[in-house]
C-alpha cells in the first residue's frame, strides 16, 4: 500500500468512528497519525477500532438497541458504511486534510523553496541521505498540489522563477543545475565546479532567472544561467568571514531584491551585506547592516525599497534602502517572542525536556507583493527532544502594516500548533509552508 493511500484511508477511518468517540479522541488521534509512519497495518487497526467502537455501548449511536439481531445488523451497516466511506474518501481525499500532502521517499523534509513566479515548491526528503528525492510541485490549485518532477539531485536550494531549473548542492558539495522543464525526464545539465573549496551554503535565483548566486562561506559566485547547459561565471563577491561570538552559530541567508538590482546575504557574522548587482560583472558592496547587539538570522526585501531582518533572539529590524549607500534603520520591534510563548508563559513545549542550548526559534520573513504587509513566522520547537517527544512546534505568525518609508504598525498575531516546523513563506507573503524533518509531509496553511 502506498504511503499516500495509507494516509488518506487512515484519516478517513478516524472519521468513521461514532460522533461521541470522535469528539473525545478524534483530534488527538489525528495528531498521532501526523507523526506515525502509516502502513496497511495502521489502516487495519483503525478499521477494527472504528467497527468495535460502533458496537461499544459507550459510543454506540442512539439508533442501536441491545437486541442481538439489531446489533448484528448494525455491525453489518457500520462495516458497509465504513467500507463505502473508505472508498469514497480514499479516492477523493478528505477536504479537511487537503492542506497537507505526503511526499515520496522517507527521512523527513530537508528543504522547501518557492519559485517567485509560479506557485512551485521544491522539497528534499532525506537531507544528506543519498536516497533523498527532490520534488517539484505545481501549486496552481493549492488544494490539489500536483507533483511534477521527482529526482535524486542532492539538497535543493533554489528554484528558477519559471519553475524550469532547480539548483541543488551535490553530495560532493558542488552546485548543480537540473532541468525539470520536462517533469518526466529531469536532467542534470551542469555542475559548476569552478567554485572555491569553502563549504557551499546557499543559492538564489535573480527575479528574472538569468543569474544564480552561489554562496560559499568565503565568497559568493554570480553565474549567468540563461543557458542551463552552459552556465557562465560573471563575477565573485568577497563575503566577510569574521565570526563574532559563538562560532558554532552561523546564520546564512541570501536573496535578490524584487527588481534584481540588489543582492543581500547574511553570513557567519550575522551581518547583512548588500551588493549592487545591476551589472553582475561589476558587482560591488554598497552597505553593511547590523543590529549591533544580535546576529541577523534571516532577511527579506520589499518591492518598495525596504529590507526586513530577524535576529537570533527575535528582534525585527526594518531598513530603508531608498538611498542604498546610506541605509537607515526605520523600525526595531523587540519582544515578539513574548507573543510566541506556550501556555503558562513557557518558552518551550510543556512536554519537552529542558534545553538551554537550543535555538530559541526558526524564523521566516516576507513582504506581500504590494509591499504593504510584513509577515514574520516564529516557529518554536520543543527543544533538544528525544524520540518519545519527537515532534511538536508552535508557529506564531506576526503581521504588520508597512509604509514605503519603513514604518510598521498594527500588529496582529495568529498561533497554530504544528509538527516540528521549518517554516517558509510563499511568494504571496501570507501562506506558510511547514516542512517537517521528522515526517515526510509539508503543510500549507494561510492565516485568516
Amino acid at each position, binding site marked *: 500500500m502506498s504511503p499516500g493511500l495509507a494516509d488518506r484511508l*487512515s484519516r478517513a*477511518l478516524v472519521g468513521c468512528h461514532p460522533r461521541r*468517540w470522535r469528539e*473525545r*479522541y478524534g*483530534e*488527538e*488521534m*489525528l*495528531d*498521532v*497519525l501526523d*507523526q*506515525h509512519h502509516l502502513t496497511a*497495518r*495502521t489502516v*487495519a*487497526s*483503525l*478499521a*477494527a*477500532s*472504528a467497527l*468495535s*467502537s460502533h458496537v*461499544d455501548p*459507550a459510543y454506540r449511536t442512539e439508533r442501536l438497541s441491545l437486541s442481538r439481531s439489531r446489533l448484528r445488523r448494525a455491525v453489518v451497516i457500520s462495516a458497509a458504511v465504513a467500507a463505502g466511506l473508505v472508498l469514497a474518501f480514499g479516492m477523493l481525499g478528505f477536504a479537511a486534510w487537503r492542506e497537507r500532502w505526503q511526499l515520496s521517499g522517507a527521512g523527513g523534509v530537508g528543504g522547501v523553496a518557492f519559485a517567485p513566479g509560479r506557485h512551485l515548491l521544491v522539497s528534499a526528503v532525506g537531507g544528506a541521505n543519498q536516497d533523498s528525492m527532490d520534488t517539484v510541485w505545481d501549486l496552481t490549485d493549492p488544494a490539489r498540489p500536483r507533483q511534477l518532477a521527482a529526482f535524486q539531485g542532492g539538497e535543493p536550494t533554489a528554484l528558477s522563477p519559471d519553475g524550469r531549473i532547480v539548483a541543488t548542492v551535490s553530495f560532493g558539495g558542488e552546485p548543480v543545475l537540473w532541468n525539470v522543464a520536462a517533469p518526466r525526464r529531469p536532467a542534470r545539465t551542469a555542475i559548476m565546479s569552478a567554485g572555491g573549496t569553502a563549504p557551499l551554503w546557499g543559492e538564489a535565483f535573480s527575479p528574472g532567472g538569468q543569474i544564480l548566486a552561489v554562496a560559499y562561506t568565503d565568497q559568493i559566485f554570480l553565474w549567468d544561467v540563461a543557458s542551463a547547459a552552459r552556465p557562465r561565471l560573471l563575477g565573485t563577491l568577497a563575503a566577510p568571514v569574521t565570526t563574532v561570538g559563538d562560532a558554532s552559530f552561523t546564520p546564512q541567508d541570501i536573496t535578490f531584491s524584487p527588481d534584481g538590482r540588489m543582492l543581500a546575504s547574511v553570513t557567519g557574522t550575522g551581518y547583512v551585506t548588500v551588493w549592487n548587482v545591476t551589472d553582475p560583472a561589476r558587482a560591488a558592496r554598497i552597505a553593511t547592516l547590523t543590529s549591533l547587539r544580535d546576529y541577523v538570522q534571516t532577511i527579506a526585501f520589499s518591492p518598495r525599497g525596504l529590507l526586513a531582518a530577524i535576529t537570533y533572539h527575535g528582534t525585527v529590524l526594518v531598513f530603508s534602502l531608498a538611498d542604498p549607500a546610506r541605509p537607515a534603520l526605520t523600525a526595531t520591534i523587540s519582544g515578539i517572542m513574548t507573543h510566541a510563548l506556550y*501556555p503558562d508563559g513557557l518558552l518551550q*513545549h*510543556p*512536554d519537552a525536556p529542558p534545553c538551554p542550548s537550543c535555538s530559541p526559534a526558526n524564523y521566516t520573513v516576507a513582504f506581500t507583493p504590494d509591499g504593504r504587509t510584513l509577515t514574520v513566522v516564529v516557529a518554536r520547537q520543543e527543544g533538544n527532544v528525544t*524520540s*518519545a*517527544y*519527537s515532534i*511538536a512546534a*508552535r508557529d506564531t505568525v506576526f503581521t504588520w502594516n508597512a509604509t514605503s518609508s519603513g514604518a510598521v504598525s498594527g500588529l496582529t498575531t495568529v498561533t497554530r*500548533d504544528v509538527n516540528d516546523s521549518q517554516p517558509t513563506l510563499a511568494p504571496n507573503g501570507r501562506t506558510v509552508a511547514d516542512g517537517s524533518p521528522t515526517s515526510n509531509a509539508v503543510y500549507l496553511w494561510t492565516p485568516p
Partner: protein
Amino acid sequence: MHGKFDDLGRFADPSLLILTSLSDGPKHGYAIMTDIADFSGVRMEPGTLYGALSRLERRGWVRPLAIAGRRRPYQITAAGQEILAEQVTTMQQIVRVARLRTAMAWGA
C-alpha cells in the same frame, strides 16, 4: 522495530503495555507508542492504542490530563498501578514456570 518482534503484539496485552509505559510518568498518544516500541519492540498501531486507552479510562486505570495543543497526556491511576502490579506478579509466575519447563524439555 521491524520484524521478529511484530508477532509479540498478538501475545502481549495492549493494556499491559500501556500501563507499563505510563508507570514512569504521563505521556501523550504518540509518546506511548514510541515508548512501547522502545522497551518491548511491539509496534502498536493507533487504532489498537486508542481502543485500549478508552477501555483503561472507563475502568479508571488511566486518567486523561488537560489537552496541550492537539495532545492529551494520560496518567496511570492508583487503581491502574495496583492492577499492573497484580498482572506483573502473575506474569512472573508464568515466566518462572515457563523457564522451568523449557529447561526440562532441553534436558538441562
